């Protein structure tokens, strides 16, 4: 419906809940007398729609002894964390914590969970395709051209833990099963890494010193004050 420019009430509020005009004054203002006159002394009246016949419900066979409270319906749809304006696709980020702390890394996109998708690129500084939380990252003003990179297939499920296969554990099998699934990076992930990095590395090499910059780690030196640094 087209929005009205300004809805003007015929009955301004003196105080919320108390209008200026009385019921009979409003009757006159709204022109209800004219509507009645047009309709022969009565308000226009339309037939009620006939309700479709519903099959009568059978009374339930079982009533629970106590009234069970239904939990309230939760219609919340979590949104991904708001991305800082300083972080745009292609920004170089400094990771502050974790295995790769101090590494300078390229930001690819924000995943639906809110985490940031980043890559080293792997060849340059050993950081693979990875998720990182926005709070543990400093955004620098350096940007990398990211137009050649296709990140559509990467999402949270790609990075999530694989669902553990349920195995019937006999006593003998118990120890063997533990050893199998560790630390094997599927070839598919390695290929994805190479794919994403290929065009990235090209655009990085186009900029002088950027490769060395990404390879170097960030560190606070003596006399450096983070509150005065401009990243």
């Amino acid at each position, binding site marked *: 419906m087209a929005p009205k420019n300004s809805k003007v009430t015929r009955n301004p509020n003196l105080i919320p809940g108390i209008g200026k005009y009385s019921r009979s004054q409003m009757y006159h203002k709204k022109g209800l007398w004219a509507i009645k006159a047009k309709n022969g002394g009565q308000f226009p009246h339309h037939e009620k729609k006939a309700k479709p016949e519903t099959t009568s419900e059978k009374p339930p066979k079982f009533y629970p002894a106590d009234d069970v409270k239904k939990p309230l319906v939760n219609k919340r749809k979590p949104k991904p964390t708001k991305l800082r304006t*300083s972080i745009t696709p292609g920004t170089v980020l400094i990771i502050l914590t974790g295995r790769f702390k101090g590494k300078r890394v390229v930001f690819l996109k924000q995943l639906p969970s809110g985490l940031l998708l980043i890559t080293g690129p792997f060849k340059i500084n050993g950081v693979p395709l990875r998720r990182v939380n926005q709070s543990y990252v400093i955004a620098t003003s350096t940007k990398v051209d990211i137009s050649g990179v296709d990140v559509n297939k990467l999402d949270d499920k790609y990075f999530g833990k694989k669902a553990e296969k349920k195995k019937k554990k006999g006593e003998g099998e118990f120890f063997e099963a533990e050893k199998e699934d560790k630390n094997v990076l599927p070839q598919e992930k390695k290929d994805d890494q190479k794919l994403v990095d290929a065009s990235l590395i090209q655009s990085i090499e186009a900029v002088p010193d950027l490769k060395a910059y990404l390879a170097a780690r960030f560190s*606070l030196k003596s006399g450096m*004050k983070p509150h005065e640094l401009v990243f």
Partner: protein
Amino acid sequence: MVKGRQGERVRYPPDQFSISINRIYVAPIFMNCCLTLALIFLYVFRLYVRGTVLGYKRSKSNQYPNTSLIQIEGVNTKEEVSWYCGKKIAYIYRAKVKKNDSYYRCIWGKVTRPHGNSGVVRTKFKSNLPPKSMGAKVRVFMYPSII
């Protein structure tokens, strides 16, 4: 209490692989993978600001140990502290008994607000800092970051 501006630490010649003065603490929470390489160069990638524990929040004859006061290096005014508000702090100390494969233990906390006009900061820790921490060093990290 440190009164007035803190002096700058003496700068060592800018050389990427110079020997750092700091003792290398193996932080119990994070494993620094490059530590093995760093042992060759003895260079630690410091991603925290050094701080000193000054004591507890107190009046003349009462102290309130749930809040500790920290002097962050290089921070000298109330306005500069606003950058650090909310940042995580770790008080790291040695113990005689190995716990979780390490002799080092940590109490986590955060910067809550400035204290006075000269850059001192109030902090709250998960459990109150022990009295022996007065005068000890503390690490003020740069996360949760908003830049």
